[in-house]
């Protein structure tokens, strides 16, 4: 991943200048850009962090690094929101917003509480721009192996940062487009993208490729979204990210009764861990899922550790 124009554009002049002065090669593999008030400008690439120097370039010395001040952060927010802070109220309440291109910006600051929980964030003090990663083709092998003889209810589990969502997105893309080479036809897919990480919608339009036959319900709670999709869009497959909780279990159960296939992800280290978690326990005991894919970080994110067939 390298820095593209659409990412540099969201930063105020001073910061975009130091990025432009940095060799594009130095930015290879960038994952995050972090701005904290009165702290050095930091990037994360290949899982370790570096400072950006006053005159561009990467440095390990925090004294020669570009210092971010509160004004830089305010200006970044103005640019990021297209100078229309008011149209991003929900995003601020949730603590993140999605940029064009699917990049995610996490926001922290002082929270203002209202009667229904967090009302908004004020005095923003730090931003974390996470560069969207789209690895097309990372699911080819799995799709061919698992789905060439029909879709199965699938659960993908791994610890954070092992590529669950990336894999899910690519599975969705493959199944939605259909692929003769992998011996799958195109399916109608409904995606409930509660945290906006699968399709990364910007103003409702998916920024990442989720396929031709995919309908995305953006930032909708999973339980509500599954019912909405069932009633309105007639999906053959419903894909959701990060299920947990008993509510999710019930909604998925109902979807199963409606004859829809489910592909979901969940946080967990191992299969044994998930077997005992409330919600999952019932799902696994009753063989809700046909197949469980376990990912790890062993040979880089997205390593397929194990595939367990439950039926």
């Amino acid at each position, binding site marked *: 991943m390298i820095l593209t124009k659409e990412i540099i554009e*969201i930063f105020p002049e001073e910061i975009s200048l130091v990025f432009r002065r940095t060799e594009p090669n130095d930015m290879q593999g960038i994952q995050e850009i972090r701005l904290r008030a009165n702290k050095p400008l930091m990037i994360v690439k290949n899982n370790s962090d570096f400072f950006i120097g006053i005159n561009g370039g990467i440095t390990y010395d925090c004294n020669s690094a570009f210092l971010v001040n509160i004004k830089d952060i305010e*200006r970044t927010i*103005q640019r990021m929101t*297209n*100078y*229309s802070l*008011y*149209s991003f109220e929900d995003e601020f309440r949730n603590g993140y917003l999605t940029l064009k291109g699917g990049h995610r910006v996490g926001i922290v600051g002082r929270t203002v509480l209202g009667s229904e929980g967090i009302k908004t964030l004020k005095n923003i003090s730090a931003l974390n721009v996470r560069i969207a990663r789209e690895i097309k083709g990372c699911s080819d092998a799995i799709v061919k192996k698992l789905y060439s003889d029909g879709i199965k209810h699938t659960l993908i589990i791994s610890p954070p940062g092992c590529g669950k969502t990336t894999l899910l997105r690519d599975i969705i893309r493959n199944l939605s487009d259909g692929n003769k080479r992998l011996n799958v036809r195109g399916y109608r897919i409904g995606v409930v993208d509660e945290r906006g990480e699968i399709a990364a919608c910007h103003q409702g339009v998916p920024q990442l490729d989720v396929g031709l036959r995919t309908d995305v319900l953006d930032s909708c709670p999973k339980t509500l979204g599954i019912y909405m999709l069932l009633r309105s869009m007639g999906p053959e497959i419903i894909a959701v990210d990060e299920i947990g909780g008993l509510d999710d279990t019930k909604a998925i159960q109902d979807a199963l009764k409606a004859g829809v296939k489910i592909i979901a992800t969940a946080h967990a280290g191992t299969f044994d861990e998930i077997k005992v978690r409330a919600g999952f326990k019932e799902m696994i005991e009753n063989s809700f899922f046909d197949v469980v894919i376990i990912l790890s970080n062993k040979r880089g994110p997205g390593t397929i550790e194990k595939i367990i067939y439950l039926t």
Partner: protein
Amino acid sequence: MLKLIGGLIIIIASTITGFYISHLLYEKVRQLRELQYALQILESEIIYSAEPLYVALSNLSLKVNEPLKALFIDLANSIKDFEKDTLHDIFINSFDRHKDRFLLEKEEIEVLVSFFSSLGTSDLEGQKKNFNLTMKKLDMLEKKADDKRQRNDKLVKYLGFASGILIVVILV
């Protein structure tokens, strides 16, 4: 004969000047009124449909007359192109390019500048206050301009004609 024609030309010219000045007084009131109308549309675009500013401004530009139309189109494009870091700077830059076509004075421009600088930085609730405040200020300024026009309209026209006569009398 020549004198007569010359004198007539002077009188006509000064009368036209008088009428022109009176037209400018009226045009200023019209601009202020249109500005208020525009803000009302912008308010509904922003508060009720939460459209991003550049979308709201380009929608708005379809509904107003020149020179506001040109200003809003320019503003919408500058916002889309991330011309400056803050909306305040973008507005000042944009307005600078069109200021010759506006008859607004310093006081009125300041109202607009402060309106646009808080437009970029506050949430919906803040926007409501911002709109209310700006509307009130513009209303006041419009009344003032209209007052001035009513008081001076006839005077300016007479003065144009009379000064023409005066010049002719002095020259003859």
